[in-house]
Protein backbone atom coordinates (compact mmCIF):
# COMPACT_ATOMS: atom_id res chain seq x y z
CA UNK A 1 0.00 0.00 0.00
CA UNK A 2 1.20 3.54 -0.87
CA UNK A 3 4.32 1.99 -2.34
CA UNK A 4 5.80 1.81 1.16
CA UNK A 5 7.58 -1.45 0.52
CA UNK A 6 7.20 -4.94 1.96
CA UNK A 7 5.04 -5.88 4.92
CA UNK A 8 7.82 -5.46 7.47
CA UNK A 9 8.52 -1.87 6.46
CA UNK A 10 4.81 -1.05 6.28
CA UNK A 11 4.28 -2.37 9.81
CA UNK A 12 7.29 -0.48 11.15
CA UNK A 13 6.15 2.82 9.61
CA UNK A 14 2.61 2.34 10.91
CA UNK A 15 3.94 1.26 14.29
CA UNK A 16 5.92 4.50 14.59
CA UNK A 17 2.84 6.62 13.96
CA UNK A 18 0.54 4.58 16.23
CA UNK A 19 3.20 4.49 18.96
CA UNK A 20 3.50 8.28 18.94
CA UNK A 21 -0.31 8.61 19.10
CA UNK A 22 -0.48 6.10 21.97
CA UNK A 23 2.05 8.09 23.99
CA UNK A 24 0.14 11.30 23.39
CA UNK A 25 -3.25 9.84 24.32
CA UNK A 26 -1.86 8.12 27.43
CA UNK A 27 -0.25 11.34 28.57
CA UNK A 28 -3.53 13.21 28.23
CA UNK A 29 -5.44 10.39 29.98
CA UNK A 30 -3.22 10.63 33.08
CA UNK A 31 -2.61 14.38 32.90
CA UNK A 32 -3.88 14.92 36.45
CA UNK A 33 -2.80 11.61 37.97
CA UNK A 34 -2.87 11.89 41.75
CA UNK A 35 0.66 10.89 42.74
Amino acid sequence: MWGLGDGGIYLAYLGNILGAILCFVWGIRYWNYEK
Partner: protein
Amino acid sequence: MFANVSFPLLVVVVLAYIAALLYMGRYAARQTKTSADYMVAGRQMNAFLMAMAYGATFISTSAIVGFGGQAAANGMSLLWLSFANIVLGIFFAFIVLGTRTRALGQALDVRTLPDLLGRRYNSNFIQSYAGAVIAIMMPIYAAAVLIGGARFLEGALNIPYWLAYVITAAIVGWYVFYGGLKAVMYNDALQGLLMLAGIGLLYVLTYVKLGGFGAAHEALTAMTPLVPAKLKEAGHLGWTSMPAFGSANWWFVFSTLVMGVGVGILAMPTTISRFFTVPRDRDIYRALTVGGPFIFVIPGTVYVVGALSNIWFHRTTGKLAIEVAGGNVDKIIPAFISGAMPPVLTYLFVLTMLAACMSTYSGQVHLIGTALGYDLNRNVRQDERRRFFWSRYGMLIGLIVSMIVGAVFPGNIIAVATAITFGFCCAAFLPIYLAGLYWKRVSTTAATWSMVSGTVVYWFYMMFGNARMAGIFKLGPALMGRPSLAGFPWSVVDPLTFALPVSCAVLVVLAFVTAPMEAKHVERVWHAFGRKAPASSAAAGN
Protein backbone atom coordinates in the same frame (compact mmCIF):
# COMPACT_ATOMS: atom_id res chain seq x y z
CA MET B 1 30.34 21.69 3.19
CA PHE B 2 27.63 24.32 2.69
CA ALA B 3 28.64 26.13 -0.48
CA ASN B 4 25.05 27.28 -1.01
CA VAL B 5 24.86 29.61 2.02
CA SER B 6 26.37 32.93 3.03
CA PHE B 7 29.38 32.06 5.13
CA PRO B 8 29.43 35.26 7.26
CA LEU B 9 25.72 34.85 8.02
CA LEU B 10 26.26 31.20 8.96
CA VAL B 11 29.00 32.24 11.37
CA VAL B 12 26.66 34.83 12.92
CA VAL B 13 23.85 32.25 13.31
CA VAL B 14 26.19 29.73 14.97
CA LEU B 15 27.64 32.40 17.27
CA ALA B 16 24.11 33.51 18.26
CA TYR B 17 23.26 29.90 19.08
CA ILE B 18 26.41 29.52 21.18
CA ALA B 19 25.61 32.80 22.99
CA ALA B 20 22.12 31.48 23.80
CA LEU B 21 23.61 28.30 25.27
CA LEU B 22 26.07 30.24 27.40
CA TYR B 23 23.32 32.59 28.59
CA MET B 24 21.15 29.61 29.63
CA GLY B 25 24.17 28.11 31.37
CA ARG B 26 24.69 31.32 33.32
CA TYR B 27 20.98 31.50 34.18
CA ALA B 28 21.09 27.91 35.47
CA ALA B 29 24.33 28.52 37.36
CA ARG B 30 22.60 31.22 39.43
CA GLN B 31 19.99 28.67 40.50
CA THR B 32 22.55 25.96 41.23
CA LYS B 33 23.49 26.26 44.88
CA THR B 34 23.49 22.69 46.22
CA SER B 35 24.69 19.31 45.04
CA ALA B 36 21.02 18.31 44.53
CA ASP B 37 20.63 21.27 42.16
CA TYR B 38 23.77 20.21 40.34
CA MET B 39 22.97 16.50 40.14
CA VAL B 40 19.16 16.24 39.87
CA ALA B 41 18.13 19.82 38.99
CA GLY B 42 16.64 20.28 42.48
CA ARG B 43 13.87 17.76 41.56
CA GLN B 44 11.71 20.70 40.47
CA MET B 45 11.66 20.51 36.69
CA ASN B 46 8.31 20.45 34.86
CA ALA B 47 6.96 17.84 32.43
CA PHE B 48 7.88 19.76 29.28
CA LEU B 49 11.49 20.29 30.36
CA MET B 50 11.79 16.64 31.39
CA ALA B 51 10.37 15.38 28.09
CA MET B 52 12.57 17.61 25.98
CA ALA B 53 15.64 16.78 28.07
CA TYR B 54 14.90 13.05 27.84
CA GLY B 55 14.32 13.21 24.09
CA ALA B 56 17.22 15.52 23.28
CA THR B 57 19.61 13.45 25.44
CA PHE B 58 18.30 10.23 23.92
CA ILE B 59 18.61 11.41 20.33
CA SER B 60 22.10 12.49 19.48
CA THR B 61 24.12 13.18 16.39
CA SER B 62 24.59 9.41 16.40
CA ALA B 63 20.89 8.88 15.77
CA ILE B 64 20.68 11.54 13.08
CA VAL B 65 24.03 11.36 11.31
CA GLY B 66 25.17 7.83 12.20
CA PHE B 67 21.92 5.88 12.07
CA GLY B 68 20.44 8.10 9.34
CA GLY B 69 23.48 7.12 7.28
CA GLN B 70 22.90 3.47 8.18
CA ALA B 71 19.34 3.81 6.87
CA ALA B 72 20.75 5.16 3.61
CA ALA B 73 22.88 2.02 3.35
CA ASN B 74 20.59 -0.61 4.90
CA GLY B 75 17.16 0.81 4.07
CA MET B 76 13.99 1.48 6.00
CA SER B 77 14.27 -1.61 8.19
CA LEU B 78 15.80 0.84 10.68
CA LEU B 79 12.25 2.05 11.29
CA TRP B 80 12.02 -0.91 13.66
CA LEU B 81 14.62 0.86 15.77
CA SER B 82 12.55 4.04 16.06
CA PHE B 83 9.50 1.86 16.75
CA ALA B 84 11.41 0.26 19.64
CA ASN B 85 12.51 3.74 20.72
CA ILE B 86 8.90 4.92 20.99
CA VAL B 87 7.30 1.81 22.50
CA LEU B 88 10.15 0.76 24.81
CA GLY B 89 12.29 3.88 25.13
CA ILE B 90 9.37 6.20 25.83
CA PHE B 91 6.09 4.43 26.62
CA PHE B 92 7.43 1.50 28.64
CA ALA B 93 10.32 3.46 30.13
CA PHE B 94 8.15 6.32 31.39
CA ILE B 95 5.23 4.30 32.73
CA VAL B 96 6.87 1.14 34.03
CA LEU B 97 10.31 2.40 35.03
CA GLY B 98 10.05 6.17 35.28
CA THR B 99 7.31 6.46 37.88
CA ARG B 100 8.94 4.06 40.35
CA THR B 101 12.41 5.48 39.69
CA ARG B 102 11.15 8.96 40.48
CA ALA B 103 9.40 7.80 43.65
CA LEU B 104 12.45 5.96 44.95
CA GLY B 105 14.71 8.85 44.03
CA GLN B 106 12.61 11.25 46.03
CA ALA B 107 12.08 9.00 49.06
CA LEU B 108 15.72 7.95 49.45
CA ASP B 109 17.35 11.11 48.05
CA VAL B 110 18.86 9.12 45.18
CA ARG B 111 21.00 11.15 42.75
CA THR B 112 22.16 8.71 40.03
CA LEU B 113 21.36 5.28 38.61
CA PRO B 114 24.31 3.66 40.43
CA ASP B 115 23.10 5.41 43.59
CA LEU B 116 19.61 3.97 43.06
CA LEU B 117 20.96 0.45 42.53
CA GLY B 118 23.32 0.76 45.48
CA ARG B 119 20.56 1.86 47.85
CA ARG B 120 17.98 -0.58 46.53
CA TYR B 121 20.38 -3.49 47.05
CA ASN B 122 22.07 -1.92 50.06
CA SER B 123 25.47 -2.40 48.47
CA ASN B 124 28.39 -0.03 48.12
CA PHE B 125 29.98 -2.47 45.68
CA ILE B 126 27.03 -2.28 43.30
CA GLN B 127 27.10 1.52 43.33
CA SER B 128 30.86 1.64 42.77
CA TYR B 129 30.85 -1.07 40.08
CA ALA B 130 27.97 0.62 38.24
CA GLY B 131 29.83 3.94 38.54
CA ALA B 132 32.94 2.30 37.08
CA VAL B 133 30.97 0.84 34.14
CA ILE B 134 29.67 4.34 33.39
CA ALA B 135 33.07 5.99 33.84
CA ILE B 136 34.69 3.48 31.45
CA MET B 137 31.97 2.99 28.82
CA MET B 138 30.29 6.39 28.64
CA PRO B 139 33.38 8.18 27.24
CA ILE B 140 33.14 5.87 24.17
CA TYR B 141 29.59 7.01 23.48
CA ALA B 142 30.45 10.60 24.39
CA ALA B 143 33.41 10.50 22.00
CA ALA B 144 31.18 9.22 19.18
CA VAL B 145 28.73 12.07 19.78
CA LEU B 146 31.50 14.65 20.02
CA ILE B 147 33.07 13.43 16.76
CA GLY B 148 29.70 13.77 14.98
CA GLY B 149 29.18 17.33 16.24
CA ALA B 150 32.76 18.42 15.55
CA ARG B 151 32.68 17.01 12.01
CA PHE B 152 29.55 19.03 11.36
CA LEU B 153 30.96 22.24 12.84
CA GLU B 154 34.18 21.73 10.88
CA GLY B 155 32.27 21.50 7.61
CA ALA B 156 29.83 24.28 8.43
CA LEU B 157 32.33 26.93 9.58
CA ASN B 158 35.20 25.71 7.41
CA ILE B 159 37.53 25.52 10.41
CA PRO B 160 40.11 22.82 11.26
CA TYR B 161 38.60 19.66 12.77
CA TRP B 162 40.64 19.91 15.97
CA LEU B 163 39.36 23.47 16.54
CA ALA B 164 35.73 22.41 15.99
CA TYR B 165 36.36 19.52 18.39
CA VAL B 166 37.75 21.78 21.13
CA ILE B 167 35.08 24.48 20.66
CA THR B 168 32.22 21.97 20.95
CA ALA B 169 33.68 20.36 24.08
CA ALA B 170 34.57 23.70 25.67
CA ILE B 171 31.08 25.21 25.29
CA VAL B 172 29.39 22.13 26.73
CA GLY B 173 32.03 21.85 29.45
CA TRP B 174 31.50 25.47 30.48
CA TYR B 175 27.75 25.33 30.94
CA VAL B 176 27.68 21.89 32.56
CA PHE B 177 30.48 22.84 34.97
CA TYR B 178 28.69 25.94 36.23
CA GLY B 179 25.02 25.11 35.75
CA GLY B 180 24.94 21.34 36.33
CA LEU B 181 21.82 19.40 35.33
CA LYS B 182 19.68 22.55 35.27
CA ALA B 183 21.89 24.02 32.55
CA VAL B 184 21.82 20.69 30.74
CA MET B 185 18.01 20.56 30.82
CA TYR B 186 17.34 24.20 29.94
CA ASN B 187 19.68 23.91 26.99
CA ASP B 188 18.21 20.51 26.07
CA ALA B 189 14.78 22.14 25.79
CA LEU B 190 16.14 24.82 23.47
CA GLN B 191 18.10 22.27 21.47
CA GLY B 192 15.17 19.86 21.34
CA LEU B 193 12.96 22.56 19.82
CA LEU B 194 15.62 23.32 17.22
CA MET B 195 15.89 19.62 16.40
CA LEU B 196 12.11 19.27 16.04
CA ALA B 197 11.97 22.24 13.67
CA GLY B 198 15.01 21.18 11.63
CA ILE B 199 14.18 17.49 11.25
CA GLY B 200 10.45 18.12 10.80
CA LEU B 201 11.23 20.39 7.86
CA LEU B 202 13.78 17.92 6.50
CA TYR B 203 11.09 15.21 6.48
CA VAL B 204 8.50 17.33 4.70
CA LEU B 205 10.92 18.86 2.20
CA THR B 206 12.41 15.49 1.29
CA TYR B 207 9.00 14.20 0.23
CA VAL B 208 8.27 17.47 -1.60
CA LYS B 209 11.60 17.23 -3.42
CA LEU B 210 10.99 13.62 -4.45
CA GLY B 211 7.48 14.16 -5.80
CA GLY B 212 5.35 13.23 -2.79
CA PHE B 213 4.89 10.32 -0.40
CA GLY B 214 3.78 7.56 -2.78
CA ALA B 215 6.04 8.63 -5.65
CA ALA B 216 9.10 8.74 -3.39
CA HIS B 217 8.56 5.28 -1.95
CA GLU B 218 7.78 3.78 -5.33
CA ALA B 219 10.93 5.35 -6.79
CA LEU B 220 13.00 3.86 -3.98
CA THR B 221 11.42 0.43 -4.48
CA ALA B 222 12.25 0.69 -8.19
CA MET B 223 15.92 1.16 -7.25
CA THR B 224 16.14 -2.33 -5.72
CA PRO B 225 18.19 -3.74 -8.64
CA LEU B 226 20.84 -1.10 -7.90
CA VAL B 227 21.74 -2.54 -4.48
CA PRO B 228 25.53 -3.03 -4.54
CA ALA B 229 26.67 -6.64 -4.89
CA LYS B 230 28.47 -6.57 -1.54
CA LEU B 231 25.31 -5.49 0.30
CA LYS B 232 23.22 -8.03 -1.65
CA GLU B 233 25.52 -10.78 -0.44
CA ALA B 234 24.98 -9.55 3.11
CA GLY B 235 21.20 -9.94 2.76
CA HIS B 236 20.13 -6.49 1.51
CA LEU B 237 16.91 -6.94 -0.50
CA GLY B 238 16.23 -3.27 -1.31
CA TRP B 239 15.72 -0.06 0.69
CA THR B 240 11.99 -0.64 1.12
CA SER B 241 12.34 -4.31 2.06
CA MET B 242 13.37 -6.09 5.21
CA PRO B 243 16.81 -7.73 5.00
CA ALA B 244 16.89 -11.49 4.38
CA PHE B 245 16.12 -13.24 7.65
CA GLY B 246 19.27 -14.51 9.38
CA SER B 247 21.65 -12.71 6.99
CA ALA B 248 24.59 -10.55 8.15
CA ASN B 249 22.54 -7.45 7.35
CA TRP B 250 19.57 -8.76 9.35
CA TRP B 251 21.75 -9.51 12.37
CA PHE B 252 23.36 -6.07 12.24
CA VAL B 253 20.05 -4.23 11.98
CA PHE B 254 18.16 -6.30 14.53
CA SER B 255 20.75 -7.50 17.05
CA THR B 256 23.08 -4.48 17.08
CA LEU B 257 20.82 -1.57 16.24
CA VAL B 258 17.24 -2.53 17.19
CA MET B 259 18.07 -4.67 20.21
CA GLY B 260 21.30 -2.98 21.27
CA VAL B 261 19.97 0.56 21.10
CA GLY B 262 16.20 -0.02 21.13
CA VAL B 263 16.26 -2.15 24.27
CA GLY B 264 19.47 -0.61 25.59
CA ILE B 265 17.84 2.76 26.18
CA LEU B 266 15.87 1.24 29.08
CA ALA B 267 19.07 1.03 31.08
CA MET B 268 20.84 4.14 29.77
CA PRO B 269 21.87 6.14 32.86
CA THR B 270 21.75 9.52 31.07
CA THR B 271 18.04 9.23 30.35
CA ILE B 272 17.10 7.41 33.56
CA SER B 273 18.51 10.29 35.59
CA ARG B 274 15.89 12.60 34.02
CA PHE B 275 13.21 10.78 36.05
CA PHE B 276 14.82 12.10 39.24
CA THR B 277 14.24 15.69 38.17
CA VAL B 278 10.43 15.88 38.41
CA PRO B 279 8.42 15.99 41.66
CA ARG B 280 5.36 13.91 40.73
CA ASP B 281 4.27 10.92 38.61
CA ARG B 282 1.87 13.11 36.69
CA ASP B 283 4.84 15.03 35.31
CA ILE B 284 6.11 11.81 33.79
CA TYR B 285 2.70 11.04 32.26
CA ARG B 286 2.44 14.58 30.93
CA ALA B 287 5.93 14.23 29.45
CA LEU B 288 4.63 11.28 27.39
CA THR B 289 2.58 13.67 25.27
CA VAL B 290 5.79 15.33 24.11
CA GLY B 291 8.20 12.36 24.27
CA GLY B 292 6.36 9.97 21.90
CA PRO B 293 5.83 12.47 19.06
CA PHE B 294 9.41 13.77 19.58
CA ILE B 295 10.85 10.32 18.92
CA PHE B 296 8.59 9.81 15.93
CA VAL B 297 9.89 13.03 14.36
CA ILE B 298 13.47 12.37 15.42
CA PRO B 299 14.79 9.80 14.65
CA GLY B 300 11.86 8.02 12.91
CA THR B 301 11.71 10.49 10.08
CA VAL B 302 15.50 10.62 9.75
CA TYR B 303 15.57 6.92 8.90
CA VAL B 304 12.98 7.51 6.18
CA VAL B 305 14.95 10.48 4.85
CA GLY B 306 18.23 8.51 5.00
CA ALA B 307 16.82 5.74 2.81
CA LEU B 308 15.07 8.18 0.46
CA SER B 309 18.28 10.18 -0.01
CA ASN B 310 19.40 7.42 -2.40
CA ILE B 311 16.83 8.65 -4.93
CA TRP B 312 18.14 12.21 -4.85
CA PHE B 313 21.79 11.15 -5.02
CA HIS B 314 21.04 8.80 -7.89
CA ARG B 315 19.10 11.43 -9.83
CA THR B 316 21.73 14.13 -9.39
CA THR B 317 25.00 12.17 -9.46
CA GLY B 318 24.08 8.78 -10.88
CA LYS B 319 25.45 7.18 -7.72
CA LEU B 320 23.99 5.72 -4.53
CA ALA B 321 24.29 7.59 -1.22
CA ILE B 322 26.94 5.22 0.10
CA GLU B 323 29.01 5.68 -3.06
CA VAL B 324 28.80 9.47 -2.92
CA ALA B 325 29.97 9.33 0.70
CA GLY B 326 32.95 7.20 -0.29
CA GLY B 327 31.78 4.33 1.92
CA ASN B 328 31.59 6.47 5.09
CA VAL B 329 27.92 6.35 6.14
CA ASP B 330 28.45 9.20 8.64
CA LYS B 331 28.84 11.62 5.70
CA ILE B 332 25.55 10.83 3.93
CA ILE B 333 23.04 12.94 5.92
CA PRO B 334 25.25 16.09 5.98
CA ALA B 335 25.86 15.70 2.21
CA PHE B 336 22.14 15.28 1.55
CA ILE B 337 21.18 18.33 3.64
CA SER B 338 23.86 20.42 2.02
CA GLY B 339 22.95 19.43 -1.51
CA ALA B 340 19.21 18.85 -1.53
CA MET B 341 17.78 21.39 0.92
CA PRO B 342 17.07 25.07 0.17
CA PRO B 343 19.98 27.34 1.24
CA VAL B 344 17.93 29.32 3.74
CA LEU B 345 17.08 26.16 5.68
CA THR B 346 20.67 25.00 5.80
CA TYR B 347 21.24 27.45 8.66
CA LEU B 348 18.56 25.70 10.70
CA PHE B 349 19.98 22.27 9.87
CA VAL B 350 23.44 23.29 11.01
CA LEU B 351 21.97 24.31 14.37
CA THR B 352 19.93 21.10 14.48
CA MET B 353 23.04 18.99 14.18
CA LEU B 354 24.97 21.02 16.72
CA ALA B 355 21.96 20.83 19.07
CA ALA B 356 21.73 17.07 18.66
CA CYS B 357 25.40 16.72 19.53
CA MET B 358 25.57 19.13 22.42
CA SER B 359 22.32 18.05 24.10
CA THR B 360 23.51 14.45 24.33
CA TYR B 361 27.14 15.26 25.04
CA SER B 362 26.20 17.55 27.94
CA GLY B 363 24.16 14.76 29.56
CA GLN B 364 27.03 12.32 29.07
CA VAL B 365 29.76 14.44 30.62
CA HIS B 366 27.42 15.36 33.48
CA LEU B 367 26.83 11.66 34.05
CA ILE B 368 30.53 10.79 33.90
CA GLY B 369 31.08 13.59 36.42
CA THR B 370 28.57 12.21 38.89
CA ALA B 371 29.97 8.70 38.40
CA LEU B 372 33.56 9.80 39.09
CA GLY B 373 32.80 12.42 41.69
CA TYR B 374 29.95 10.75 43.56
CA ASP B 375 29.39 7.06 42.80
CA LEU B 376 33.05 6.08 42.75
CA ASN B 377 34.02 8.48 45.49
CA ARG B 378 32.59 6.85 48.58
CA ASN B 379 34.14 9.37 50.97
CA VAL B 380 32.24 12.34 49.60
CA ARG B 381 28.73 10.89 49.44
CA GLN B 382 27.75 12.19 52.88
CA ASP B 383 29.53 15.52 52.62
CA GLU B 384 27.47 18.15 50.79
CA ARG B 385 30.31 20.55 50.02
CA ARG B 386 32.71 17.88 48.81
CA ARG B 387 30.21 15.99 46.65
CA PHE B 388 29.27 19.27 44.94
CA PHE B 389 32.95 20.01 44.33
CA TRP B 390 33.82 16.52 43.11
CA SER B 391 30.81 16.15 40.81
CA ARG B 392 31.92 19.31 39.05
CA TYR B 393 35.55 18.32 38.75
CA GLY B 394 34.63 14.73 37.89
CA MET B 395 32.72 16.21 34.96
CA LEU B 396 35.85 18.01 33.80
CA ILE B 397 37.83 14.77 33.95
CA GLY B 398 35.08 12.99 31.99
CA LEU B 399 35.15 15.74 29.39
CA ILE B 400 38.89 15.41 28.91
CA VAL B 401 38.76 11.60 28.79
CA SER B 402 35.99 11.65 26.17
CA MET B 403 38.06 14.09 24.11
CA ILE B 404 41.08 11.77 24.27
CA VAL B 405 38.99 8.72 23.31
CA GLY B 406 37.47 10.65 20.41
CA ALA B 407 40.90 11.67 19.18
CA VAL B 408 42.09 8.05 18.88
CA PHE B 409 38.87 6.61 17.41
CA PRO B 410 38.84 5.54 13.76
CA GLY B 411 36.33 7.16 11.35
CA ASN B 412 32.94 5.67 10.39
CA ILE B 413 32.37 4.67 13.98
CA ILE B 414 29.45 6.68 15.31
CA ALA B 415 26.63 4.10 15.11
CA VAL B 416 28.70 1.14 16.35
CA ALA B 417 30.26 3.11 19.24
CA THR B 418 26.77 4.17 20.31
CA ALA B 419 25.48 0.60 20.13
CA ILE B 420 28.42 -0.64 22.23
CA THR B 421 27.69 1.72 25.12
CA PHE B 422 23.95 1.10 24.97
CA GLY B 423 24.52 -2.65 24.89
CA PHE B 424 27.07 -2.65 27.69
CA CYS B 425 24.85 -0.59 30.00
CA CYS B 426 21.87 -2.77 29.09
CA ALA B 427 23.66 -6.02 29.93
CA ALA B 428 24.97 -4.59 33.19
CA PHE B 429 21.99 -2.64 34.49
CA LEU B 430 18.68 -3.64 32.90
CA PRO B 431 17.95 -6.91 34.76
CA ILE B 432 18.87 -5.55 38.20
CA TYR B 433 17.21 -2.19 37.57
CA LEU B 434 13.93 -3.78 36.51
CA ALA B 435 14.06 -6.40 39.27
CA GLY B 436 14.95 -3.75 41.81
CA LEU B 437 11.74 -1.89 41.02
CA TYR B 438 9.39 -4.87 40.74
CA TRP B 439 10.77 -7.99 42.42
CA LYS B 440 11.04 -8.17 46.20
CA ARG B 441 12.72 -11.58 46.21
CA VAL B 442 15.93 -10.55 44.44
CA SER B 443 18.97 -10.53 46.71
CA THR B 444 22.11 -8.39 46.80
CA THR B 445 24.22 -11.39 45.77
CA ALA B 446 21.99 -12.12 42.78
CA ALA B 447 22.10 -8.47 41.67
CA THR B 448 25.87 -8.27 42.08
CA TRP B 449 26.61 -11.38 40.04
CA SER B 450 24.03 -10.52 37.41
CA MET B 451 25.71 -7.16 36.81
CA VAL B 452 29.22 -8.62 36.80
CA SER B 453 28.32 -11.55 34.50
CA GLY B 454 26.53 -9.23 32.05
CA THR B 455 29.54 -6.96 31.72
CA VAL B 456 32.06 -9.81 31.47
CA VAL B 457 30.11 -11.65 28.74
CA TYR B 458 29.54 -8.43 26.81
CA TRP B 459 33.20 -7.44 27.07
CA PHE B 460 34.43 -10.88 26.00
CA TYR B 461 32.14 -11.10 22.97
CA MET B 462 32.89 -7.50 22.00
CA MET B 463 36.63 -8.20 22.04
CA PHE B 464 36.63 -11.69 20.52
CA GLY B 465 33.23 -12.55 18.99
CA ASN B 466 31.73 -9.68 17.02
CA ALA B 467 34.17 -9.00 14.19
CA ARG B 468 33.11 -5.40 13.61
CA MET B 469 33.54 -4.43 17.30
CA ALA B 470 36.69 -6.51 17.77
CA GLY B 471 38.14 -4.63 14.81
CA ILE B 472 37.73 -1.33 16.67
CA PHE B 473 39.58 -2.43 19.80
CA LYS B 474 42.00 -4.71 17.93
CA LEU B 475 42.83 -6.80 21.03
CA GLY B 476 40.98 -9.94 19.88
CA PRO B 477 42.24 -9.96 16.29
CA ALA B 478 45.81 -9.33 17.52
CA LEU B 479 45.68 -12.28 19.95
CA MET B 480 43.74 -14.66 17.67
CA GLY B 481 45.23 -13.70 14.31
CA ARG B 482 41.71 -13.55 12.79
CA PRO B 483 38.76 -11.14 13.04
CA SER B 484 36.51 -13.34 15.17
CA LEU B 485 36.61 -16.39 17.39
CA ALA B 486 33.79 -17.99 15.39
CA GLY B 487 32.53 -17.87 11.81
CA PHE B 488 29.27 -16.55 10.40
CA PRO B 489 26.68 -15.90 11.81
CA TRP B 490 28.39 -15.64 15.24
CA SER B 491 30.86 -13.07 13.97
CA VAL B 492 28.02 -10.61 13.21
CA VAL B 493 25.80 -11.26 16.25
CA ASP B 494 25.77 -8.45 18.80
CA PRO B 495 27.31 -9.22 22.23
CA LEU B 496 24.05 -8.21 23.91
CA THR B 497 22.35 -11.24 22.35
CA PHE B 498 24.35 -13.36 24.82
CA ALA B 499 25.13 -10.91 27.59
CA LEU B 500 21.55 -9.95 28.42
CA PRO B 501 20.18 -13.52 28.69
CA VAL B 502 23.21 -14.44 30.84
CA SER B 503 22.74 -11.52 33.23
CA CYS B 504 18.99 -12.27 33.42
CA ALA B 505 19.55 -15.97 34.04
CA VAL B 506 22.17 -15.33 36.74
CA LEU B 507 19.80 -12.91 38.46
CA VAL B 508 16.84 -15.30 38.47
CA VAL B 509 18.78 -18.42 39.49
CA LEU B 510 20.72 -16.70 42.29
CA ALA B 511 17.59 -14.90 43.50
CA PHE B 512 16.07 -18.28 44.24
CA VAL B 513 19.13 -19.96 45.75
CA THR B 514 20.38 -17.08 47.94
CA ALA B 515 18.76 -15.52 50.97
CA PRO B 516 16.47 -12.57 50.19
CA MET B 517 17.24 -9.11 51.50
CA GLU B 518 16.13 -8.01 54.94
CA ALA B 519 12.33 -7.61 54.87
CA LYS B 520 12.49 -4.25 56.64
CA HIS B 521 14.71 -2.79 53.92
CA VAL B 522 12.54 -4.15 51.10
CA GLU B 523 9.38 -2.78 52.76
CA ARG B 524 11.01 0.62 53.06
CA VAL B 525 11.68 0.62 49.32
CA TRP B 526 8.15 -0.54 48.47
CA HIS B 527 6.71 2.05 50.82
CA ALA B 528 8.44 4.69 48.66
CA PHE B 529 6.61 3.45 45.55
CA GLY B 530 3.25 3.99 47.23
CA ARG B 531 4.01 7.43 48.64
CA LYS B 532 2.06 10.44 47.47
CA ALA B 533 3.99 13.43 46.15
CA PRO B 534 4.68 16.20 48.68
CA ALA B 535 1.70 18.54 48.96
CA SER B 536 3.84 21.61 48.24
CA SER B 537 5.11 20.35 44.90
CA ALA B 538 1.66 19.06 43.91
CA ALA B 539 0.21 22.48 44.56
CA ALA B 540 3.06 24.22 42.76
CA GLY B 541 2.45 22.27 39.58
CA ASN B 542 -1.23 23.11 39.25
